[in-house]
Structure formats: C-alpha cells, structure tokens
C-alpha cells in the first residue's frame, strides 16, 4: 500500500469538517487527528464515526504527540494562527493555514504551487481569493499595465459561519492583498456579499479590471487554459460569463459548485479553499513519498 502523509486538522468548524471529508478520499493523505476545543458537537461525532482520532485540547494535542503528524491544516482563526505559527515552527511541522492570518506565503495552487513546496508555512488567503486570483493573475499575464482589479464574491448566507461573519474586514484586507500581489495591479478592491435566498445560491465571483488596452481574445484563451487546470483540483469551477468588455472594464464571472462534502453543493466557497489546501498538501505528500513508491 502507498504510504500516506499524516495530517491533523486543527479547528472543528465548517472548514475543518469539510476538509476531513475530503481527506478521507485522498490517496496521499491520512487524517490522524481532528482537533478542536469541544468534543460535544455533531461535527466531532462525524469524525469519531469516520474512525479518526479526535481531541479537544487544541494545539496542546499536537505538542503532546508531535510525531503523530507531518502536516497540519490550521482552520481556526487569524488570531489563533498567530499563536500557533511559532509552535509549529519549533516542532518543524508543515502548516497549511486556512485563516486570513497572513503569516505564511500566499498560496494559490493554480498559480504558484511549486514555489510553495519548499516552505513550511503557506497561507490559503480566502475563499474569494482562491476563486478570483487565478483570473486576476491571468489578467496580469496578458496585460502589462493593470491599473485596477476588483473582485466581488457572493456566497450563500448559510455557508458563512460565525468566524467568517466576524472577520469580513480581514477577508477584504487579505483578498485585496492577494489580488495585488499576484496580478501586479496598481490597486485592488474586494467586496463580499451574503445572500440569504432559499434555495441557497452557489458561490459566484466576478472579476473586473481596468487596463489601458484590453486584449480580450488573448485573455479568453488564457482564462480557458487556467480554468482547465483549476478544474483538476476544483471540479465545480465554471466560467459563467466569458471575459468581455462592458462599460470600459474587463468583466468575467465564475461560479463554484461545491462537491457537497460536508455542506451541500451551494457552499462552493468552503469547497474551493479546501480543494486548494488539499492540492497543496498532496503535492507535499508526493514530494515526500511519491518517488519512493511511485512505481
């Protein structure tokens, strides 16, 4: 049997639980710890039923048994990750940070997975960042002078847990940072909208840009290539409005249909950041174990 990388999930919220379901399917990852602060939740029960070791000791569980884990997914909060990061560093653990803490290098697998492979702490930015940055990056590759990029993500109210709601400012700040970094735009803006419609709407993201001379045909070609690659790790990512020029701006829109692992498929926002985190983790695993038993 193939050797799997041992991973822990720190944080038992919506993100952590959805990650768990996805890891159970991975040929490269094995969840050896689902760690939270509270054992009495339906989500913990789910982990126990899946036969996964659970703990309510938070980061203490990792400090007690560091050898049980090669890699940690931190799905707590930005404030908590700031405390966790130096501990992981001391324990020499690889950490994939799903909070907007902005400590590790920003990682968007479709754009810079190889660059991240030598690092021990990578940050997955935000769900809106994972959805929009591949497109913003493409705009930046096709155009030399990107003056402004704006991304608007709309998510279903039910897919936004309490941490997301309390951290809208951090979401905006971190997403805007990521957009600028990967697209080289002079300015960026991120907007997040919660929509309570029932039945729930799928996550959707619009990317607009101002450049001096839009190269729409070239952009279309590159966007399609990018999306083909993205779909290898986020199968539900769909272009709904092709890149076009509308009102003197470049405009395109995508929708993410989630895999329906923990929350139903409308929660594409959970899905995309977790799919990205898993793609990164599997890459680490392949680097570590891939060569040895690849044949």
């Amino acid at each position, binding site marked *: 049997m193939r050797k799997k990388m041992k991973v822990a999930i720190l944080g038992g919220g919506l993100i952590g639980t959805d990650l768990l379901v996805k890891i159970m399917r991975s040929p490269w990852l094995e969840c050896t710890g689902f760690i939270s602060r509270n054992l009495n939740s339906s989500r913990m029960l789910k982990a126990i039923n899946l036969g996964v070791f659970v703990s309510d000791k938070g980061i203490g569980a990792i400090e007690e048994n560091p050898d049980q884990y090669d890699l940690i997914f931190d799905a707590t909060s930005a404030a908590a990750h700031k405390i966790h990061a130096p501990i992981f560093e001391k324990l020499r653990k690889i950490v994939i940070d799903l909070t907007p803490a902005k400590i590790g290098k920003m990682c968007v697998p479709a754009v810079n997975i190889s660059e991240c492979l030598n690092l021990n702490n990578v940050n997955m930015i935000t769900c809106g960042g994972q959805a929009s940055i591949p497109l913003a990056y493409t705009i930046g590759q096709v155009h030399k002078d990107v003056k402004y990029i*704006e991304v608007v993500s709309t998510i279903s109210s039910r897919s936004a847990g309490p941490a997301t709601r*309390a951290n809208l*400012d951090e979401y*905006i700040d971190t997403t805007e940072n990521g957009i600028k970094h990967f697209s080289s735009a002079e300015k960026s803006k991120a907007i997040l909208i919660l929509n*309570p419609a029932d039945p729930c709407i799928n996550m959707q993201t619009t990317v607009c840009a101002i450049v001096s001379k839009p190269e729409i045909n070239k952009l279309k070609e590159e966007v399609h290539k990018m999306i083909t690659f993205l779909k290898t790790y986020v199968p539900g990512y769909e272009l709904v*409005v092709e890149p076009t020029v*509308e009102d003197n701006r470049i405009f395109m829109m995508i929708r993410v249909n989630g895999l329906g692992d923990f929350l139903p498929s409308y929660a594409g926002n959970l899905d995309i950041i977790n799919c990205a985190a898993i793609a990164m983790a599997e890459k680490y695993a392949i680097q570590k174990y891939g060569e040895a038993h690849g044949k």
Partner: protein
Amino acid sequence: MENNIRKKILITDPTLRDGSHANQHQFSEKQIRSYSIAAERARIPILEVGHGNGIGASSLQVGLSSVNDLDMIRFAREHLQNTKLGIFMIPGFATIKKDLRPAIDAGADVVRIASHCTEADITERHIGYARERGKLTHGCLMSSHMASAETLIEECKKMESYGAEGVILMDSAGNYLPSDVYEKVSALVKNIHIPIGFHAHNNLSMAVANSVAAVEAGALIVDGTSRGFGAGAGNTPIEVLVAVLEKMGYDTGIDLYKILDASEIADKDILNSKPTIDSTSIVSGLAGVFSAFKKHVIRVSAEYNVDSRDVFFELGRRKVVGGQEDLIVEIAIELSSKEKSLRI
C-alpha cells in the same frame, strides 16, 4: 403649550448619499458645499454624505465616485455646526481600518452601519467601533421587504445588543405599501427598546404615505431627501415630509421655509435629473429589487438589446440583494441569447 407636547421626529437627510446613486456618484465639491450650507440653514438634524452604498463602496460594481468619501466629509464638515454629519457603511464593502476610522477622524458625527435585512451579525464589530468612538450609531436593515416581522425583530435585537442606538428599516426597493410598513414598524416598536426608523423609496409612489405610516406606527426616525433625490425612483421628498409631519402635529425641528429654500437650491444646483417614477422604477419596485440597480440595468439592457423590465423581474426571481449588480450582466447575456435562439 402645544409645542411642548408635540412628538419629536428625527429627520435624517441622505441627499448627498442616496442622491449619489441618482447622479452616478458624481457630486462635485461645489454641490456638496452648496447643499451643506442650505441644510445647516434649514436646521436639518443629520445630513448624510458619501458614496451611494456608503463610505468605501466606490467600485466598478456600484459606480466610482468622482469626489472620494473623505473629501466629501471634509467639504460638508466646513459648513455644518448644528446639523450633524452622518455617514453610512456596509460591512463587506468597507472596513474599519480603511474607511470607518478615517471617516470618523475626518469629522463624522453620526454613523449608520447597514446590512441586508437578515445578516445583522456582520455589523457587530463596526457598530461596536463607532460606539467606542462615541458616535451616535444606528443600524440599518436593507431591503427589509424581504423578511418577515419576526425575522426583523430578531435582527434588530442583534443590532441593539451590539450597541446600536436606533435601527432603520430600509425599503431599498420601494416595494412596501403603507399597510406593510405599519405592520412591520409596529411589531418592532413593540419588541425593541431603541428608536425605530424608516427609509423609503418611491417606486410605487408610496414614499410619503409609507413614511407617514411608519410615524403612525411609532417610528421616531424618518429619512427624506431634497426633491426625493435618491436611487431608483428616489426617496421621500424631505420638503413634503416636513410639511406633512408639521400638519400632523409632529415636531421635526426643521424650519419649513428654509427646507423649501434648500430644495430650491438642490433643484437648481445639484439635481442633474429629477427623480421620476418611470417604467423601470415601477417594475423594480414590484420585483423587489434594490433601487440602486436601476442605472446599471438600463445601461446593460441597452448594450445587450434586452428589455430592462425582463431583467428586473429575473433579478427579483433570483432574490438578489444590494451589491449584486454583477448579476445584471449575466442575466442580460442569458436573455439575449434566449431571444436569439427564438429568432432562429
């Protein structure tokens, strides 16, 4: 004395905020100064300024401002003494660090923090921050026609627990009839301990009637703009509102002649177009779609050669909320390709 027993109604005037939607966020420095002077003279209690969707919302999605929010605040500030300077903010568009803190530093006295009517919990930090800074702070529930009275009570309670000193029900789509307003406002007044307010839009020609219904149901805060200058079909005309409340025996503290003068000044200096109830406004009100979508729907419908009324009804069917203007393009493309396939 009769004056002593007259019930006080607090009027907020968002001419230089909601009106931004009506002129695509293009107020000039001169216009801001001119109307601020008129508002101070008329003793309007609160004058709200900024981008149509509030500070920090200048964007391709909603529209780019010609004068940025901080400058708008600074220009108005110079002319206001008794009139308080208000700002509006929607979390998700703006942040404390980038927008709210500098706006308060620049001289805002009154802060309104808004969310879609079912999402009050995104306002907790921003309401808390404005209170920490010692500002009069109101919560706003936008597109409140989309939630039941029971839900609105729960959302109001959240805002109250965060520190809001009043909650404004916004009829962002101009969808209410007076009986709806009466039902919802009285339910809130009965269950909530802080003042309740109402912000009308005139899509179905109900803005004044709805404001009256709100006051009769116990609302203590009502919004009006000069000549109704605001998103979509516009808001409640403040000069009519003041006159009607005066006739009903309420005390607004606003000087009638001076508010009439202010509306003349607005008419001459700042209204680039008069709010009218045109076909798209009626449809937008019926469909229950955020009024500020109007200019975008008209533009995009013309570009893709589709009927703007169809676009509005489809937006309504999808239950869009404020800030989802990007969907207009998707819907227009969809409708136009449907029409093309019908022709073939």
